[in-house]
């Protein structure tokens, strides 16, 4: 892959974290031994919507081993309420109790917490807590939620429509009126959940003497978590430490401070004893966090040859019962970047988000996951209606290098992206023309092959300027420190929260490159707020650019000082002719680069132990810190190609081939990046084919086990071919762009488009997920395929 003159960045070094994880010596939250720890367990609402009339915990309290049982009343004294009120037009402010006091809003809503000496006892006691409910009519459907007569999920709001934004750019109406046709398409994405294999959990340890809380919690954003937890407990941030150990996956589920975690922390302080909670899988499926459940509709005004004149998007999202995030947050990104790879300026969107009596939504690996399916499905719909080749329609509308930088109608600026290159790369690799010939041949034998193409433009790193423009309080910066120790080994830290991405490896590459020392001497310290600098943590795909970029810049600072010290030792006027390679200082002369005999270790000894030998005015030590605010937004891009066969007798979908051509800029670690691509693609395929959080019309969750909420196994996921087509960004340190969510976006679009392509002879289209055999059978039942030569 074309990367400029890097020695360490981009080298395929196996991961540093593996040895402990392979041998059972990882340390996840529940592995941490805490003497005298108590166990928390939550009593949860069996109803989707009900008034809490009374809670009788006397029988439970009398059970041996039960320490205490608390409800929303106690928590209201010990903690502050959660207020979600960013100044965003069309978004209603909301508040939430730490535990519900009067009313429960979904099945699984926690109403009481039992603390006992043992988890088994705590669960027994939960069953003895008697809660009297008055059942209320629930809202379980996003269309029903909009009915003025519908019950209100949050009584403080005028209606269930918690957020509504409209946007218009250009003149969509006149473009539509002069268009050859307006092509309409619909995209319904079902409710899903993150499903980290390690569920949520935490262990809170209160140090009475120091009035200090240590919160062990698997967490993507240690510092923002500390800020929130401290505020809700009315503690100064100096009195709270977040320690996030090894984390068994998160995918967006471990960002917010959840009510259970706050309850456990408050209990540890009140009881003056350590308390831990390990969510079980039923709780995780019912009550952790949901995502998606969006209905998107597009109307594309096009010319007869498929040129896109204008585009309209409607989004309706079911956000569930509670707002741990601004309710517009997920859907707005979809609308903001929808046009992605295509040139169109006349664009309008209408985005509505409603509350229902379901588990609340949160960002799940690609909060904007539906985006690429919507735009690429729209391209396919245009091709279908106009009788054009879907690839030709894409080519006629796609951004070319000469168009960059390109300001999208929403004001987002695309630069350093290569959608046309990845499209052509993927088409060539999959053998597009040969596939069409095979498809025709297969159709004559009654077999339904399909090829889905999906080009992705993925928003990756959100800078502060983006947040400011979006009206969201907060920052997109990241922070880092690097300390070269007196022996010449290197400790480094940043505010990211590792949840399995391999940061200890990939970030070491960034430090190695900036400093000029091999990765083996670098240790990356993450997840402890007493050690890490205050950064914004891991969300979106910001780890590489924000975290890696900051560390790289910090390492350049470190190298400059190291070389200045070396120059003084060598009697040189400055460090202009010096460089460091593998921890050894080299000097350039007529013969080329020669070793000076000076090493990072010898410079470190001087810096710490012989400061009088330093250049005049230089401070002792080799301690560096730095923060960095990325551009308003960075983008990566990719094209996915998926070949399927649909068995129309059974409705089964078999993936015959899957490949993705991706440009995510400079790659810190190809090992880690390829792993992220595989994982994201697999998640997208699993999402689209199998996963489904099912609520019935009374608001009962019907997918409370892994036998009901289906996740793809190795038998459903195909081998994945990757084409690296990376080009560095011109706007970030080392050319980083960020990645890891686009794979989900591309996979969802590619599989849907492939199935539509396969079913084309039947004249039917899939416009909702999951792609169950029942759904596909219902579509083709009683229909006979068109003659094979229709395409």
């Amino acid at each position, binding site marked *: 892959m074309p990367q400029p003159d890097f020695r360490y960045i981009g080298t395929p070094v196996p991961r540093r974290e593996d040895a402990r994880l392979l041998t059972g010596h990882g340390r996840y939250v*529940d592995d941490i031994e805490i003497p005298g720890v108590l166990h928390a367990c939550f009593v949860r609402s069996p109803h989707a919507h009900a008034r809490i009339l009374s809670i009788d915990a006397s029988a439970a309290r009398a059970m041996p081993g039960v320490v205490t049982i608390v409800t929303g009343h106690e928590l209201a004294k010990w903690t502050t309420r959660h207020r979600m009120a960013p100044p965003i037009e069309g978004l209603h402010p909301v508040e939430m109790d730490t535990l519900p006091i009067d009313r429960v809003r979904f099945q699984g809503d926690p109403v009481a917490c039992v603390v006992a000496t043992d988890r088994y006892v705590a669960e027994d006691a939960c069953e003895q807590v008697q809660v009297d409910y008055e059942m209320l009519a629930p809202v379980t459907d996003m269309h029903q939620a909009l009915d003025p007569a519908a019950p209100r999920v949050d009584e403080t709001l005028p209606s269930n429509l918690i957020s509504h934004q409209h946007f218009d750019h250009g003149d969509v109406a006149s473009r539509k009126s002069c268009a050859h046709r307006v092509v309409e398409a619909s995209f319904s994405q079902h409710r899903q959940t993150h499903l980290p294999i390690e569920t949520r959990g935490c262990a809170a340890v209160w140090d009475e003497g120091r009035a200090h809380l240590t919160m062990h919690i698997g967490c993507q954003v240690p510092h923002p978590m500390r800020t929130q937890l401290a505020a809700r407990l009315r503690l100064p941030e100096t009195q709270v430490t977040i320690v996030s150990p090894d984390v068994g996956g998160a995918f967006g589920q471990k960002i917010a401070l959840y009510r259970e975690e706050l309850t456990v922390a408050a209990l540890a302080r009140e009881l003056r004893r350590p308390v831990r909670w390990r969510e079980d899988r039923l709780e995780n499926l019912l009550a952790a966090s949901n995502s998606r459940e969006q209905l998107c509709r597009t109307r594309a005004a096009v010319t007869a040859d498929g040129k896109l004149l204008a585009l309209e998007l409607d989004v309706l999202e079911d956000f569930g019962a509670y707002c741990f995030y601004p309710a517009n947050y997920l859907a707005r990104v979809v609308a903001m970047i929808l046009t992605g790879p295509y040139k169109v300026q006349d664009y309008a969107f209408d985005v509505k988000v409603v509350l229902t009596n379901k588990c609340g939504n949160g960002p799940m690996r690609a909060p904007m996951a539906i985006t690429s399916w919507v735009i690429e499905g729209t391209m396919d719909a245009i091709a279908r209606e106009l009788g054009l080749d879907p690839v030709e329609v894409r080519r006629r509308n796609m951004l070319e290098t000469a168009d960059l930088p390109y300001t999208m109608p929403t004001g987002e600026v695309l630069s350093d992206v290569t959608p046309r290159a990845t499209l052509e790369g993927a088409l060539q690799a999959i053998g597009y023309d040969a596939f069409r010939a095979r498809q025709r041949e297969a159709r004559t034998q009654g077999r339904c092959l399909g090829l889905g193409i999906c080009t992705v433009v993925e928003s990756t790193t959100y800078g502060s300027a983006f947040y400011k423009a979006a009206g969201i309080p907060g920052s997109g910066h990241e922070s880092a420190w690097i300390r070269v120790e007196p022996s010449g080994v290197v400790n480094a830290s940043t505010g990211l929260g590792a949840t399995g991405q391999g940061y200890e490896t990939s970030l070491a590459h960034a430090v190695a490159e900036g400093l000029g020392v091999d990765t083996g001497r670098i240790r990356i310290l993450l997840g402890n707020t007493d050690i890490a600098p205050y950064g914004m943590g891991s969300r979106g795909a910001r780890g590489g650019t924000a975290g890696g970029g900051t560390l790289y810049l910090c390492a350049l600072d470190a190298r400059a000082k190291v070389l200045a010290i070396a120059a003084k030792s060598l009697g040189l006027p400055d460090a202009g002719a010096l460089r460091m390679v593998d921890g050894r200082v080299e000097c350039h002369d007529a013969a080329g680069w020669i070793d000076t005999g000076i090493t990072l270790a010898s410079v470190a000894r001087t810096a710490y132990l012989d400061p009088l030998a330093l250049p005049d005015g230089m401070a002792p030590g080799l301690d560096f810190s730095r923060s960095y605010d990325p551009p308003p937004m960075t983008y990566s891009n990719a094209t996915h190609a998926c070949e399927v066969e649909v068995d129309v007798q059974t409705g089964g979908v078999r993936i015959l081939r899957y490949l993705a051509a991706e440009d995510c800029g400079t790659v810190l670690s190809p090992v880690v990046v390829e792993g992220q691509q595989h994982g994201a693609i697999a998640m997208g395929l699993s999402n689209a084919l199998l996963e489904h959080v099912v609520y019935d019309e009374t608001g009962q969750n019907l997918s409370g086990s892994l036998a009901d909420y289906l996740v793809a196994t190795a038998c459903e996921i195909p081998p994945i071919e990757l084409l690296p087509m990376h080009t560095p960004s011109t706007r970030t340190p080392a050319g980083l762009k960020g990645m890891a969510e686009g794979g989900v976006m591309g996979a969802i679009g590619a599989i849907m488009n492939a199935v539509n392509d396969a079913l084309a002879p039947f004249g039917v289209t899939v416009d909702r997920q999951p792609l169950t055999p029942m759904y596909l059978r219902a579509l083709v039942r009683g229909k006979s395929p068109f003659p094979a030569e229709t395409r």
Partner: protein
Amino acid sequence: MERMRITLDVNGVRYPIEVEPRKLLSDALREDCRLTGTHVGCEHGVCGACTVWIDGHPARACLTFAAQMEGHAITTIEGIGAGDRLTPLQQALHEHHGLQCGFCTPGIVMTLGNFLDGHPDPSDDEIREALSGHLCRCTGYHNIVAAVRDAAARMRGHHVDGGDAAA
């Protein structure tokens, strides 16, 4: 609930412990034997993270009561490999980047380690079938399959160099 005295034989070490009859083997291993490498992902036998060997055969520790294990030899992830040396499967998982968050990994090492003993030259389909009792949310399984294939080759005496992780 009344406790029972039992002795668990885990990785060749005898652990005399007192447990309620209902205590799961997974919890007894983690809490009473302090062997936390056996992970609990679902407690209903689907995800496979808690897989251990009972008398040499893979089994779900979350579907087994500790009290049933008197007289049986249990092997956990901590008992795999010799000292600090990784097994060929563990080494291949490392070199092929067959793990990310690592939470499902011990269970996979237990199941596939046993599988390789009976399948010295497995096809990819056989590997995927053997792996299908484990949910991995991070890797997409691609590199795990490559690692198992390579581990089999190493155990047969051929080392397949590189693999996808180095591509």
